[in-house]
């Protein structure tokens, strides 16, 4: 850090604003996250409720829901992803421009939730695309979605512009396209993307 934090505050009192490119860049990104207008199931209604007058997501600079993935920064997977829908979700994610983020909203998007035993239900969208924030709940309350939003903003704020742990969009080598699963005769093929998801080791 180039500027000492206390000095920065002191300068601020004098009317001098000191910042770094990194801070400015991240501040700009985190304050205007545009979500995609993309509802899947029950959670979508709570997502709509979050944008309405009572919860007012606009306070976080995120009221502009974009119907097109090209203009969106954030995909809120709001509901059950079925096997019939999963290819489309991955394709939409591929169409979004970097930097892009994903919130898995609700139990279904995380793991299949109550419908996990279903033959047509994907057991978690993180099998195909990377997820930044998970919120549990069935459906999560609007407050929970706001919490997820603030978590995401914090995450964006902490991203360094350089170095090994820089975000994907600043890494020329990083994977941009994610393979889209094909509907097969009995199941999706492949059933998960090994580059994103591996079977967690559970001690039993």
């Amino acid at each position: 850090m180039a500027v000492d934090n206390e000095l920065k505050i002191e300068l601020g009192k004098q009317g001098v604003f000191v910042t770094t490119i990194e801070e400015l860049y991240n501040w700009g990104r985190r304050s205007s996250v545009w979500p995609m207008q993309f509802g899947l199931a029950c959670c979508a209604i709570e997502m709509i409720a979050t944008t309405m007058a009572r919860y007012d997501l606009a306070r976080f600079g995120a009221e502009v829901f974009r119907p097109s993935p090209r203009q969106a920064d954030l995909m809120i997977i709001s509901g059950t992803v079925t096997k019939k829908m999963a290819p489309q979700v991955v394709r939409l994610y591929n169409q979004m421009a970097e930097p892009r983020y994903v919130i898995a909203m609700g139990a279904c998007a995380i793991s299949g939730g109550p419908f996990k035993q279903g033959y047509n239900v994907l057991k978690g969208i993180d099998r195909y695309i990377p997820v930044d924030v998970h919120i549990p709940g069935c459906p999560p309350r609007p407050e929970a979605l706001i919490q997820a939003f603030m978590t995401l903003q914090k995450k964006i704020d902490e991203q360094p512009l350089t170095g090994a742990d820089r975000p994907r969009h600043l890494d020329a080598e990083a994977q941009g396209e994610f393979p889209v699963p094909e509907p097969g005769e009995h199941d999706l093929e492949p059933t998960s993307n090994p580059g994103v998801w591996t079977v967690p080791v559970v001690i039993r």
Partner: protein
Amino acid sequence: MRTVEEIKAAIEAAVPDAGVTLVMNPSPAAQHSLLLQPEKAVAVATFLRDSPELAFDYLSNVTGVDWLDKEIAEKVKVTKSVTKTVDGVEQTVDETVEETQKRVEPGYLEAVYHLYSVALKDGPLVIRMRTANRTDKIEMPSLTPVWRGAEFQEREVFDLYGIVFAGHPDLRRILMWDGFKDHPMRKDYVEPDDFEYEPTAHDEVLKRAQERQASRD
């Protein structure tokens, strides 16, 4: 509301050789049903819709039901010729023995239709049709030409149970994708084994998860 017996009599009077069977429903709901012969089903359905006394013009619900092959064990008295040695002489004697015989009653697929009458505010009348078996003779006539409301529901039954509705205008899969091969609502459907990771596995899933884990180690 007419009773099912009266409706059955009316059908038999109007449609010759209708072959309608009464299927009793023992539950307190007492919604008894009429089993139709597939060959006469469209004629009977058209009569039910068009007859001014019945006027079942509203098809509420179409369902498939899968009845598996049933193994029935029965005790049967069998008379057998048994060779016995009586007093040193071989004789053939008829003897009646009780035996447990097992026979397999073939399963079938069933389509159930719930009818109401909007004109007379009457209903429900339950009619059903059965296929001959669950494997190859799975055709029955479509009632979509009679009640348009059956269009999507029969497609759903075709998709999930595999009943082929002859005469349906657009019989394609509706809920699963087109390349899908199974009929998932059948009782013997085996779903794809994708319970790879189960945080709170138990019973069979736990056993499978442990086997997977062992093969990975």
